[in-house]
């Protein structure tokens, strides 16, 4: 059983190394993430963000504009997940500890 574990580990390492070696080089403009249209021929959202992030919000950090403005509903969900985690800890840890 222990040998199987190591075989799985080595195979997984091989998969990851293959993926890393096959990555496109940094700054390659023809790599899929840098294209203006995706494989289906429709424009990619990233192009709009790069061109308009500073114009729309006057904020130099593009990531903040995407997280806080364009995708702010997603950030709201993340915040509520954190809050629900806190509330769940409150109720789970206080099951028997509650003082009358």
């Amino acid at each position, binding site marked *: 059983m222990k040998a199987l574990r190591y075989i799985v580990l080595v195979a997984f390492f091989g998969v990851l190394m293959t993926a890393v070696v096959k990555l496109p080089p940094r700054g390659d403009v023809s790599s899929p993430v840098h294209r203006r249209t995706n494989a289906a021929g429709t424009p990619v959202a990233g192009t709009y963000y790069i061109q308009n992030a500073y114009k729309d*919000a006057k*904020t130099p950090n593009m990531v*903040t504009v995407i997280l806080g403005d364009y995708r702010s509903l997603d950030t709201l969900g993340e915040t509520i997940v954190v809050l629900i985690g806190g509330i769940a800890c409150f109720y789970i*840890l206080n099951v*028997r500890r509650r003082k009358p």
Partner: protein
Amino acid sequence: MSEFPEHDPKDHCLDESLKEPTDSLIVHATARGIAPFILLIGLYVFFHGHYSPGGGFQGGVLLAVGFLLLRLSLGVRLSQIVMPHRLTLRASAIGALLFVAVGLSAVIMGGNFLDYHLLPIPGLAPEYLRYFGILLVEVGVTVTVTFTLVAIYDELLGC
């Protein structure tokens, strides 16, 4: 250190010594000296989210670390002054409510949810309204993350 106290199933608190102030003068002085700077770096990371890597979540975690260092070193009772226990979970709910309030105020002004350029702040161009809308939202995120992490620690200690 070798003998731990007998675990009583009725006792759901952790070790009581975790709530006590530390005996070491060095730990005491160092924690009290470093914690304000950790809080300052947390505020820096938060406010520089518009210009550099950072933002609500990272700054909130740093602020929480500053408060937790005081909780760990000064003990629960002494650190109630800087962060009262009854405040934590309520304040984290207020942070999430601030986020939702920013979104709903845009709805009331006739736009979509979280459509910042319709926020009711007079005298600002739409781009700067979005700038401050992002800032307000990040304030909500920071408050939620900070107080939730402190609240989870407090609940683990059972104080």
